[in-house]
């Protein structure tokens, strides 16, 4: 038996009610430890695909496998996700927000706090354990949201436009932190974005989607010629612009057959 990928998606299509086809025959995979991005224009079905992979939404047809086990339509504990909305509960302190998932998993309060405390330093939130989300900046809240996911130790992290609302320097900062964390822990990441630069900088592989209906038009292996995970080094690699341009053209072509991989 061959080793299964962290995520495999086979022939996923989705139609909401009797509306138009939003996703049409999507096939993709993510290897364990790989960083995979989806780029595509707004409305092409990225979030729909995201929700299908998380198991929160059932596809109209097709299958989702997580670590080789079919999970179609039901959330898997191996997957954690982060959205643009931080979804922190305003009535809970940061600490109690971070341990939400552990509470649901019925980890004891003391043990949950111990596990969470170990992360606060790495996420630059030490000293804010007892603050409420309303007292924190957008960047800090987004870090807390990532912590809430990471503390439950999922193998696979899904992110949907997680850094869209942040200003540029903060976005770079959080992307760096993300890379450090996921690479050190060997996590698989599926990253959804409309931002080509972000996709090329972070990813090992990029899938390009087109809209109406959402279809994969291209799959690009990114090799920036560096082993470094540092955002700076990757962004300034000489190969960066070629990848950027390829994806730009691919999206611009909107799925005309000559650019389909």
């Amino acid at each position, binding site marked *: 038996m061959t080793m299964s990928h962290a995520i495999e998606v086979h022939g996923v299509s989705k139609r909401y009610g009797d509306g138009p086809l939003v996703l049409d025959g999507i096939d993709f995979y993510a290897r364990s430890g790989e960083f995979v991005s989806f780029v595509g224009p707004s409305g092409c079905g990225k979030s729909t695909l995201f*929700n299908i992979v998380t198991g929160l939404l059932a596809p109209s047809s097709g299958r989702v496998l997580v670590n080789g086990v079919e999970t179609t339509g039901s959330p898997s504990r191996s997957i954690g996700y982060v959205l643009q*909305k931080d979804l922190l509960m305003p009535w809970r302190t940061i600490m109690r927000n971070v341990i939400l998932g552990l509470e*649901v*998993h019925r980890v004891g309060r003391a043990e949950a706090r111990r596990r969470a405390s170990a992360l606060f330093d790495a996420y630059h939130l030490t000293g804010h354990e007892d603050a409420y989300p309303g007292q924190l900046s957008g960047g800090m809240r987004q870090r807390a949201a990532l912590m809430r996911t990471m503390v439950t130790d999922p193998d696979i992290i899904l992110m949907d436009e997680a850094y869209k609302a942040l200003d540029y320097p903060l976005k770079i900062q959080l992307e760096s932190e993300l890379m450090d964390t996921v690479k050190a822990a060997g996590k698989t990441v599926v990253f959804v974005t409309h931002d080509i630069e972000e996709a090329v900088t972070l990813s090992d592989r990029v899938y390009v989607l087109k809209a109406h209906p959402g279809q994969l038009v291209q799959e690009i292996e990114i090799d920036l010629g560096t082993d470094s995970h540092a955002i700076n080094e990757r962004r300034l690699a000489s190969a960066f612009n070629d990848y950027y341009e390829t994806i730009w053209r691919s999206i611009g072509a909107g799925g005309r057959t000559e650019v389909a991989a």
Partner: protein
Amino acid sequence: MTAFQIEDAQTGAVRTRPARSRNRHPASRRRTLLVFLQVAIVVAFLAVWQWGATGGWISTFLFSSPEQIISVLAQNITTGELWTDMGVTAQEVLIGFAVGAVGGSALGLLLWYSRFVADLSAPFITAIGSIPVLAVAPMMIIWFGTGLVSKVVIVGFSCVIVSLTNAYRGAQRVDPDLLDLMRSFGSSKTQAFTKAIVPGAMSWVVAGLKLNVGFAIIGAVVGEFISSSAGVGHMIVTGSSSFAMNQVLAGVVVVMAMVLAFGLLIDLLERALFRWER
């Protein structure tokens, strides 16, 4: 032409705002001014009333006077009757409120569990909510006697629908993405309920409780009007049947004081629950 003038007046008001906010504490100054004016209005009202009563151009038979009302209150305090009446009414209100408003809120939140049951019961809830408490109060007295129980039922009936509806609406408004997050952690429906729905709907629940402070006290007084041997409503209705306007109005003052005091209690509860908002 009037529309144009109104619009002008509005833009004028907007334009003056930045200038005002240059004051060091514009919000607190505004608040002080408001309270000052409110107190001044009450004092002026009482002064004119008393002046008219003394001068003879306001009939004390029809309208009583502040002085007479105070003397009735003072007398009822010395005899201890006032405390008895207030105690009786407060007991009816507190128990009825706990049953109706708190129970109604709990039911409204629990309806979140089943969209089907909620939709099924919706027209019945609306129908029950449209019944005036005055219409059913006499029946409650017949069913539950003239004592505490019937008043508690009447108070509960006055509160239950508003609290139920508010709590249900609050539960429905909890961010569906938050519920997805709970689900992604593998939460049970009960975990989602206790960790997301109940706290998420709490501001709506408290808004319902606040509305019900008034309804609860009205319910108790209405119950006492129909049949009672003590209570603030009893004080008002006996005064009314003997044309003692000073006693009626003294009762009204007590009712207002009770609504205020009860409202303050709910404000305290709100502050304790929403510490995170500040």
